């Protein structure tokens, strides 16, 4: 094909006139009806997933609580040694949202002992479990925590925007399980692309990848419950989607680390293997629930 032909094709397209569709039907109304139904369904799915998470957290907490369920049998008393004050219903009436946030930050700070030097968990908003960031010398990353027996392992077929990570030269991540003192840690990597509206192909092309999520799961040997921790890395800006300044703000808000997962799987193993870690997650859940009740009363 010559350059002439290429140019001619352009001229040909330019010279073509396409009229309006004959008797065009209403396209917007049915689209709004369909889109509205899908939006409602999406909302319900989100609510359902959140409810499942709460149930899973509760089940995990009961299973791992000292002396509770089929627990691991570690420790005893109200909480592990050195843990911050326990969340109890008796203090609820006097607590405000700001106080709760302070309590939760205190719980997170108690995990500092098990982090590498210079790293800190922070809680920027309520519910705390949804707004935890990890800061360190390499940057900041949003941390998504979860507990339960059915931990996320691969992208659900219903979410075509998320895929199992295909190892590429651009993003040479590895995954797999390894044993630690009291359990097993598994590393999972998934890719996210920005264009999630359609597409079901595996992401073999690194240019399509926008986010990479590193997820570590921990399963104690003595329990069927498990814990997961996810950190996000922004691989590339979404130039077609918004102003680069917005992307900068998004990074700041969401804590996408540019350098990859801040906490290594080995450090996660150190953290997750502590009774304090499981205790803190349980406590954070309790405080978050209390904050939600407070907000609800305020709204009423």
């Amino acid at each position: 094909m010559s350059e002439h032909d290429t140019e001619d094709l352009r001229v040909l397209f330019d010279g073509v006139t396409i009229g309006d569709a004959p008797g065009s039907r209403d396209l917007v109304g049915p689209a709004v009806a369909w889109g509205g139904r899908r939006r409602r369904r999406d909302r319900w799915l989100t609510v359902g997933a959140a409810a499942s998470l709460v149930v899973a957290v509760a089940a995990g907490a009961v299973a791992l609580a000292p002396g509770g369920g089929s627990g691991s049998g570690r420790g005893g008393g109200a909480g592990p040694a050195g843990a911050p004050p326990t969340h109890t219903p008796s203090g609820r009436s006097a607590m405000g949202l700001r106080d709760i946030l302070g309590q939760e930050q205190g719980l997170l700070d108690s995990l500092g002992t098990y982090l590498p030097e210079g790293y800190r968990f922070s809680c920027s908003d309520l519910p705390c479990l949804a707004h935890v960031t990890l800061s360190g010398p390499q940057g900041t990353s949003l941390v998504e925590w979860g507990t339960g027996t059915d931990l996320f392992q691969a992208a659900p077929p219903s979410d075509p925007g998320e895929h199992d990570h295909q190892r590429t030269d651009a993003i040479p991540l590895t995954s797999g399980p390894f044993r630690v003192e009291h359990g097993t840690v598994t590393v999972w990597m998934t890719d996210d692309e920005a264009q999630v509206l359609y597409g079901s192909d595996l992401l073999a092309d690194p240019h399509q990848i926008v986010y990479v999520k590193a997820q570590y799961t921990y399963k104690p040997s003595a329990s069927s419950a498990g814990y997961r921790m996810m950190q996000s890395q922004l691989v590339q800006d979404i130039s077609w989607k918004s102003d680069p300044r917005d992307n900068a703000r998004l990074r700041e808000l969401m804590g996408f680390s540019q350098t990859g997962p801040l906490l290594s799987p080995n450090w996660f193993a150190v953290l997750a293997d502590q009774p304090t870690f499981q205790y803190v997650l349980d406590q954070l859940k309790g405080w978050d629930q209390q904050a939600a009740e407070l907000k609800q009363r305020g709204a009423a």
Partner: protein
Amino acid sequence: MTDEDEFRQFAASRQKQLLRSAYLLSGDWHSAEDLVQTAFGLLYRHWRRVSRVEYRDAYAKQVLYRCFLASRRRKGFATVPIDSVPEPAAAAAAQVDDGRLSALLEALSGLPERARAVVVLRYWEDYSVAQTADALGVSQGTVKSQTSRALELLRVRISGLLSDSRQD
């Protein structure tokens, strides 16, 4: 203005433009309308996010082209055209067509779906290679190879039209 009002306003203002692109992709008005309606549905579903996008036109086109490719992947479930039903598009096209549009549509229909999408984006929408790659979610190398392949096929099918346009 509500979410829905804002979307309806956006959709109404872009409908004709998107329909023309969809017509080139699908080859008939009925499929073009289906395609645009599907794209509108998806855009409305994600409107809260889409409404924050700076280049909404480009985003809407991207959704349209991806819907086209996705619908072709699922074409086993697509409806089969009924020969006995007259195609109003042909009459409508004839009103404004000097033969070029019909020939172009026929030539495009002979291209594989992705190649067709690449050609329409590159030569109808005037997208660059990079923009086309972004819109279709493929690499720039894929766009170049698809363009080259498509142009080879088109050269055979519409060489007469190409030389006509050269003379024009």
